[in-house]
Each structure stands twice: as structure tokens, then as C-alpha cells.
């Protein structure tokens, strides 16, 4: 590997200072990138390590062919800027998706193509500097990887893929938001095996409590099945649901009760967290999380993977299970909304139209809607029992991101950015609907939208999951 990598000469502080854009003084780095691990290594061997990591990634993955294509074809028409809610908010050239992608593509051009290497030798100037790497570390986490811009690129460039790749390479040199690393470490290498570090006894207590709640509210005995072998579905929800979104879980449990399929699903005690931050920053993590899910499926002899109300958990399982689960042999992946929709169509759900009188609107999580996967199902469910259902504009495949996509919602340090920049358009959109309930079937979107509403003066808005409302309205015998 070594031979493929150019070692860069030591660069004097003067040169670095002259290259450094004004936005990236050490103070700014301290202030703006403090959430990124290894913040002290402002000057050092970052370029060499970045290029080594980039070379290793290009060697072992399928990114080279697509990056090579993207590096050659951009027409720089800026169609993507019209689609980007961040650029529309800031009008900062650094937020044009094509500009952002070009940072990594330029590194590829300069260091991994013949022409770039020749040019580099002729000009002699160091191209990849610490500052450029830090700029990438900052800007690729400003992007929420919502992929709206990919719908607008005439040349078919997927800027979400470039963001993912850049973050992957950065993560291999330790530049990744601390919040994501700590959660993932606990999920895959910790004692509790989930991103929120909740020990199983606490979750068991919660489930017991929820069962009692359902008994009180609905008068029926509903059990959360745990470690039951041979079931149709093994269920993975974002673990935060067990802490903060109890009504979502209760809603899911009563849907199973209503469909007479209480014995068709199970939760695993060993690994129940559907969260997969690998989708946001690392193929290595992505694969490990999915292999854990597959392992639990085999252990409990389940046949399908059922993901709760979570956009990225659903997409990472749906889009990559075949990759790691043996292609044709991989288990099918189902999102809970698809299950509930089928139950509705089969007439198994009785939802009381008199319960929800407030205005309701639906927010499309990017990871469910951008590819056109799940758009109409939740709407049909909502329309069946919400009298005052209104749509946001734009919606569906063209939805606006909640502003906390791509894992950025987990980074509490950048909340002012998330709610004051990336989430502003969403806040305007919600305000325009006049809705009381914003249904967001995604743990990340829910957290972000609550913060967006709080910081943008939308005090009357309540952000809920789809199954929260179903739980309120369902009629059980």
C-alpha cells in the first residue's frame, strides 16, 4: 500500500497560515469542531493518514469506479443548490452540494489520477493540508445526507454517496463526531449492546410497565414477546424508543394484538437496537451492526427482519441486508409501517375517527421517502382516522429533511446550527400547515423536529410517531 501513497513534505507554519481560510483559525476549530474527536491534532500528519485511509478504502470497496466518474463529469450547473435546504438558508458557497463534493473529488483527482499526480509534481504546492481536512470534517457534517440534491443532478451525481465516503475516510483517521463513536462503541463492544447504554433489566422493567399501561388504557393483555424462537419477525427498534417513545412501542404492540399476530414477532434480549450509525460514517460499522441483526435472527430462528419507526435503521437494513446476508438468501426486511398498512388494508385495524380531532400532518423521513420506498402507506393510515389531515409542501420523494439527518441530530453541540440553519425551512413548512400533530416515523426526525419546534417558536406543535396516534385511536375488543 505504501508505494501508492505520496508522502507530503513538511509544511511551514507560514505556508499553512497563508492557505488557511479565515473561517478556520485554531480558535474557530476549537469552537466549531470541538465535537470532532482528536481536535488537538490541528497540524500534524493528517494529510498522510488521510491519503493512506483513502487509498485503502478505494482499494477494497466499490467506490473507485463511481468517484472516478464523478471526478470527471461535473458540469457545475448548481441545480443541486436549488434543492439544498442548507444552501437556500445560508447562501454560503461552501454549502452548494457540488462544491462540497468537489473537496473530496479534488483530493481524488490530485492524488489518485495520473493527470493529478503529474500536475501536483509540476506545481509543487501541497494540495492536501490539515486545513482542507478540517474543512472536510466540518462541511461533511453540515450536510445531512438527505440526498435531495441527487434528484436534481442532471449528470446523476449522488452527493449523499460522496458525503458518506468522505465521512468514512475521515472516520478512519479518527475525525468523527464523538457522540456517534461513543454510541456505536457501546452498541457493538460495550456491556449493554445498545447505543443508549440501557442495561437489559431496565428495558425489561419498561416493557413490563408498558404492558400494564396498555392494560389500563385499553383493557387488554398485550405482551411484548422476548427471546421467542421461531417467530416470523425479529424486531429492531431504535433503542431510544424504549426510553422516550413508549407510545410508539405500545402502538406497535397493539397493532400486533389487533391483527391476532401476537405470536408472530419477538424482541431479542441480546441485541435489540436497530440504530446503525454505520450508514452515516463507516462501512465497517454498517456491516457489523447488520451482522449483529443477522446473528440474532439466526439465534431466534426468525424469518424476517422488522424495523420499527426509524428511517436510517430501515434503510440500512433494507438496502444492505442482501449485501451482508448472502444475496438471495438474505432475510426480507420490513418496516413496521408496511406491516400496519397491510393490516389496515385487510380490515384488521379499527381506528376511531373521533379520537384525533386536532390537525395532523406527516413528515417524510429522507431514508424512507427519497428512494420512493414508503410514501403513501402512512398517509393512507392517517387519512383513515384523522379528520383534519393536511400535507406539507414539498413532500414525498421531494420532502425537506428535518435538518438533523445523517447522524447530526445526535451531536448536541451543534444544536444551534441544526435548529437555526438546517431546520429552519422545516420549521416554516410545519408552521404553514398549522398542524398540531407532526407525525414523524423516525427516532432521529422526532428528536430533531422537537428541538426545531422549540427553538423556532412552534410551541403548540406535538411531534409524534405514527403508532402513537394509532395507539390513541385504536379500538380493541
Amino acid at each position, binding site marked *: *500500500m505504501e508505494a501508492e501513497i505520496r508522502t507530503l513534505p513538511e509544511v511551514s507554519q507560514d505556508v499553512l497560515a497563508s492557505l488557511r481560510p479565515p473561517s478556520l483559525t485554531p480558535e474557530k476549530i476549537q469552537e466549531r469542531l470541538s465535537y470532532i474527536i482528536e481536535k488537538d491534532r490541528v497540524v500534524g500528519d493528517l494529510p498522510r493518514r488521510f491519503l*493512506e*485511509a483513502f487509498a*485503502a*478504502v478505494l*482499494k*477494497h*470497496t*466499490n*467506490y*473507485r*469506479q*463511481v468517484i*472516478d*466518474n*464523478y471526478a*470527471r*463529469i*461535473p*458540469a*457545475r*450547473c*448548481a*441545480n443541486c*443548490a*436549488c*434543492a439544498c435546504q442548507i*444552501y437556500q438558508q445560508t*447562501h454560503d*458557497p461552501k454549502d*452548494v452540494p*457540488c462544491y462540497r463534493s*468537489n473537496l473530496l473529488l479534488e483530493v481524488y483527482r490530485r492524488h489518485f489520477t495520473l*493527470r493529478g499526480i503529474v500536475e501536483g509534481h509540476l506545481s509543487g504546492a501541497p494540495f492536501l493540508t490539515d486545513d482542507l481536512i478540517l474543512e472536510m470534517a466540518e462541511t461533511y457534517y453540515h450536510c445531512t445526507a438527505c440526498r435531495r440534491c*441527487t434528484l*436534481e443532478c*442532471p*449528470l*446523476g*451525481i*449522488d452527493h449523499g*454517496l460522496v458525503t458518506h465516503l468522505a465521512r468514512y475516510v475521515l472516520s*478512519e483517521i479518527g475525525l468523527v463526531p464523538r457522540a456517534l*463513536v461513543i454510541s*456505536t*462503541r457501546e452498541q*457493538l*463492544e460495550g456491556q449493554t449492546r445498545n447505543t443508549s447504554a440501557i442495561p437489559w433489566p431496565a428495558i425489561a422493567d419498561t416493557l413490563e410497565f408498558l404492558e400494564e399501561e396498555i392494560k389500563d388504557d385499553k383493557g387488554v393483555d398485550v405482551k411484548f414477546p422476548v427471546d421467542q424462537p421461531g417467530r416470523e419477525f425479529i424486531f429492531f427498534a431504535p433503542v431510544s424508543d424504549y426510553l422516550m417513545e413508549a407510545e410508539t412501542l405500545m402502538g406497535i404492540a397493539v397493532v400486533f394484538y389487533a391483527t391476532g399476530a401476537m405470536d408472530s414477532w419477538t424482541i431479542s434480549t441480546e441485541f435489540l437496537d436497530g440504530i446503525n450509525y454505520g450508514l452515516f460514517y*463507516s*462501512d*465497517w*460499522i*454498517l*456491516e457489523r451492526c447488520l451482522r449483529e441483526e443477522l446473528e440474532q435472527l439466526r439465534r431466534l430462528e426468525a424469518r424476517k427482519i422488522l424495523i420499527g419507526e426509524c428511517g436510517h435503521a430501515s434503510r440500512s437494513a433494507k438496502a*444492505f441486508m*442482501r*449485501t*451482508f446476508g*448472502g*444475496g438471495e438468501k438474505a432475510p426480507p426486511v420490513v418496516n413496521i409501517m408496511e406491516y400496519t398498512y397491510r393490516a389496515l388494508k385487510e380490515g384488521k385495524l379499527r381506528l376511531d375517527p373521533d379520537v384525533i380531532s386536532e390537525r395532523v400532518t406527516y413528515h417524510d423521513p429522507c431514508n424512507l421517502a427519497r428512494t420512493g420506498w414508503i410514501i403513501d402507506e402512512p398517509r393512507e393510515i392517517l387519512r383513515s382516522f384523522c379528520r383534519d389531515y393536511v400535507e406539507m409542501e414539498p413532500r414525498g420523494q421531494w420532502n425537506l429533511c428535518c435538518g438533523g439527518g445523517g447522524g447530526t441530530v445526535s451531536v448536541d453541540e451543534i444544536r444551534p446550527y441544526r435548529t437555526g440553519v438546517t431546520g429552519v425551512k422545516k420549521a416554516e413548512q410545519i408552521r404553514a400547515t398549522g398542524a398540531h400533530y407532526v407525525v414523524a416515523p423516525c427516532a432521529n426526525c422526532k428528536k430533531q423536529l422537537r428541538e426545531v419546534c422549540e427553538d423556532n417558536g412552534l410551541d403548540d406543535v406535538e411531534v409524534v410517531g405514527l403508532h402513537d396516534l394509532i395507539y390513541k385511536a385504536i379500538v380493541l375488543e
Partner: protein
Amino acid sequence: MLESWIELARGPLLRLALLAMAVGLLRQVLLQVWEISWAFHRAGDQVVPWRVALRRNLEWLLPWRYLQRKERRAYNFTSFLFHVGVIAVPLFLAGHVAIWNQELGLSWWTLPPAVADWLTAITVVAALGLLLGRMVNSASRVISKFQDWALPVLCILPFVTGFWVAHPLWSPFDAQVVYLVHLLSAELLLILVPFSKLVHMVLFWVSQTSSELGWRFPPGSGERVRVTLGKETEGI
């Protein structure tokens, strides 16, 4: 003197430019096909929606997609007109088909002269429009590089001079000079195709497929990257 230059530009230089473009494009195509097949071979999930991907590319060739949307409608439609002209006139102008016939022994349908004239005018206006659009849109202006400004200008040159070649009375310059500029600018453009963003004329067709394959990881690639970087024993 000029005549010998024109002879050179009409004959050997034209052949050289076409050859350079063909070889350059062929190299790009072969590399891309090789890379794509290798990626497909390694992918854990080999169900690739080839047709859907190609259809997404094709959708962008036709204007109905962006005419439906408000944003950038004028710019995108101008771009559409520009592309129609820039492809149709070099290939289907009667004078050009005669050259292709003479060089390659192939002949095909030709544009009626009046249509060719209008298309030429539209192409030039569209190219100016694209430059103007690039100038007034701040996002586009800021991300533009040298070639984004230079290539439209370079495209205008053979079209304007070509029009004067066909209508010498309209030309303010010496006919031979105009003809020479026409030939040389067109040849320069042809040579630049594989080395500039113009290479999208071939790479465009696979960009969506490339994206799909980029998301189709080879199983175990993450672990192999760790091993290559000497981090196989390190935790998260």
C-alpha cells in the same frame, strides 16, 4: 499560405483530432466498463437496477422533467437547446456529412439548410445564455472553474464561423480566415473532449449505474480496510 493551412486543418489535423477523441473516449469507456464489472463482481448484492438507473439518466436528456419544476427551468431548458444544437449540427449538417462520407465512407440523413441555420443560431444564443446563467446564479458562479467558462466560448467559435462559412456575405472577415478558425476551433474542441468535462458525453450514460454500484459494498470490505491500515486489533 492560408490555403495550405486549410488543407492541413481539413485533412491530417481533422483526422488527428477525431482519432485523439476516439482513442481518449475509448480509453475512458473501457476503464469505466472494467471498473464497473469489477465492482459488480465484488458486490455482495448483485441485484443492480440497471434499467432504472439508465432510465434516470435518459430522463435528464428530455426536457419534460425539468419543465415541470419551477427552479432553474430557464437554465435547464437553455441547456437542452444547446445540447440539441451542439450534437445535431456537427453530425447532420449537409456539409459535414459530405466530409464524413469522404473520410469514413459513411453517409446519413442531413439537416435541411434552413433548419441547420436556425439550429446554429439557437446554439450560439443558448451558449451565451448558459454563460449568462452561470454568471448571475451565485451558487453556479462560485463553484465554476476555468473550463466551465472557457468551453462554452470555445463552442461558440466553430458555430459562429461555421455560419459565416455557409453565408459568406454575412461575414465581416476574410472567408479563408473564417474557415481556418472554424476548422481549428472545432478540432481543438474534439481533442479536449476526453480531457475535460465534455467526457460526460460517454460517462454520463453510466453515472446512475455507477452510483448504484457504489452503494453495493463488497462484504468484509470494512474489515479489509482496517487490516490494510494496521488497525485490525483496534476497537471502535
